[in-house]
């Protein structure tokens, strides 16, 4: 379809000329600078306060602190699970004589895939995705767009493709900015460092720490998988954003709804640990890179595969609803 290439070119041109995407890149770079700066300061302070201690003693202390806290009665259940997980992981690293806290640019970049896909990257996608369709209604240009000899589904498909392209660009930018900026402080090399993966907590409050699945992979391999999963999460967020952009005629309404949903959902998965219906909500399933690393999921019984399927279902349902609504609705005023 030669026309489809032209339609996608149109959508990309509009995204770029609206300048929202440039804002996304600037925000991303600024936040990364801030986080790297803060981590660097923390590392320097630790070295200054405990110059005598070697890393083994530090890791040992952190692990026993976590175990003590996890034993406290008033601690929420999902925090306890995370603490038992983290202390078990630290102890295993110690037993292999590996430093789990060795901070390099590549380690930072790997970690950012998980941290970023919870809230930051989805919010940035909402910034440029929310106006894909709603701005055409708000500015009145929908009238011209839909009175050209191009079926409505093709017009929307070109917007879906543009959304996917710019989501991919956002992820690529996030990866290279994270590596580039953190490298200034922590060094750019270290992609071959060994990573231990596959720790698992047994079920229930007293479940043991399961080491049978633990394996060692080079960091670059782990990072590649983590960012691939972050990209998948981001595409799901983009699809849902596109649906809101079709539903609302105002850019502010579409963007506001998406942002409120993301922030609200993040809070929900942190506090509502005993209502496990929340595991079907898309926001709960966004941190795929963390689930892949084996971090405890917010609800028991969630797995990486479960979350991938839930996100896929949300994305597919959103796109289907967006196409139905967009191709059928009367365009008045």
């Amino acid at each position, binding site marked *: 379809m*030669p*026309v489809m290439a*032209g*339609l996608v*070119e*149109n959508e990309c*041109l*509009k995204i770029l*000329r*609206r300048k929202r995407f440039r804002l996304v890149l600037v925000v991303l770079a600024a936040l990364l600078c801030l986080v790297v700066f803060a981590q660097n300061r923390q590392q320097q302070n630790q070295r200054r306060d405990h110059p005598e201690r070697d890393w083994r003693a530090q890791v040992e202390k952190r692990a026993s602190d976590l175990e003590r806290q996890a034993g406290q009665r008033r601690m929420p259940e999902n925090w306890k699970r995370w603490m038992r997980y983290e202390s078990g992981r630290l102890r295993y690293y110690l037993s292999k004589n590996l430093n789990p806290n060795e901070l390099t640019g590549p380690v930072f970049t790997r970690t950012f895939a998980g941290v970023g896909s919870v809230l930051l990257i989805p919010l940035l996608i909402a910034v440029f995705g929310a106006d894909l369709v709603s701005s055409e209604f708000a*500015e*009145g*240009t929908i*009238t*011209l*767009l*839909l*009175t*050209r*000899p*191009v*079926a409505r589904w093709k017009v929307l498909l070109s917007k879906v493709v543009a959304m996917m392209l710019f989501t991919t660009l956002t992820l690529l930018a996030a990866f290279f900015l994270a590596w580039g900026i953190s490298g200034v402080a922590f060094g750019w090399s270290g992609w071959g460092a060994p990573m231990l993966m596959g720790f698992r907590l047994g079920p229930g409050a007293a479940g043991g720490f399961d080491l049978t699945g633990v394996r060692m992979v080079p960091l670059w391999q782990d990072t590649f998988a983590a960012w691939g999963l972050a990209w998948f999460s981001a595409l799901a967020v983009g699809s849902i954003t596109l649906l809101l952009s079709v539903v609302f005629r105002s850019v502010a309404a579409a963007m506001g709804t998406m942002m409120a949903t993301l922030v609200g959902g993040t809070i929900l998965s942190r506090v509502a640990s005993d209502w496990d219906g929340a595991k079907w909500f898309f926001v709960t399933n966004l941190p795929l890179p963390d689930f892949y690393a084996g971090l405890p999921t917010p609800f028991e019984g969630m797995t990486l595969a479960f979350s991938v399927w839930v996100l896929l279902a949300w994305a597919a349902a959103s796109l289907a609803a967006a196409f139905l609504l967009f191709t*059928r609705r*009367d*365009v*008045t*005023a």
Partner: protein
Amino acid sequence: MVVSAADVVLSAEGLAKRYGDREVVSDVSFALRRGEVFGFLGPNGAGKTTTIRMLVGLVKPSRGRIVIDGHDLRQEFEAAMRRVGCIVETPDLYKFLTGRENLEHFARMLGDGAAGRIDSLAALVHMDGRLDGVVRTYSLGMRQRVGIAQALLSDPAVLILDEPTNGLDPAGIREMRELVRRLAGEQGLAVFVSSHLLSEVEKMVDRIAIVHRGRTLATGTLVELTDGGRRGLEDLFLELTGGETV
């Protein structure tokens, strides 16, 4: 004047549109012929814009049929719309793009070398040399003209303009009238012009339809409708609508 079916480039038969429980358009029928300027006259709220939205596929008719250059709009949307250019209500272009970028944008939606027509169309609407300004800085008249250039990109058989003289000054209205006459005369286009002001379109139309409360009440040339000029169109309108003036 004998009109063969082959001359008809757009026909609307028994169009109706219902929003909720309110019927906004009840029975609109007309046929548009090649090379003519057709006035669609009626007071505000008569259903002109709603009819136009149905003609260009923005709104789905509750009843009735639209055929454009032999293609049924509902069944062959793309083939039908290739023969139509339109401006509905205001000429809304992408304000953050230049006039040329807007035209290139819509040319890409058409494919097949439509972009090659941009410069000649810009000259036709007297926008050559001003296409590279951002649309945000254009006057209404300039937007109107870029809008018409955009509508002509696909080399259509029908041009639909919704109240094109609204908001223009007398010089702008005269210019618009000359452009419309030229398009119909030189290029054989059928031009459909809606208006609530008879005086502004009187001198540009060949035939008119009078629409009131969602119905076409009379269709014909100005001479036919005014008994060869013996009575004014205002009188006819008053008679048809029972009081409201155009």
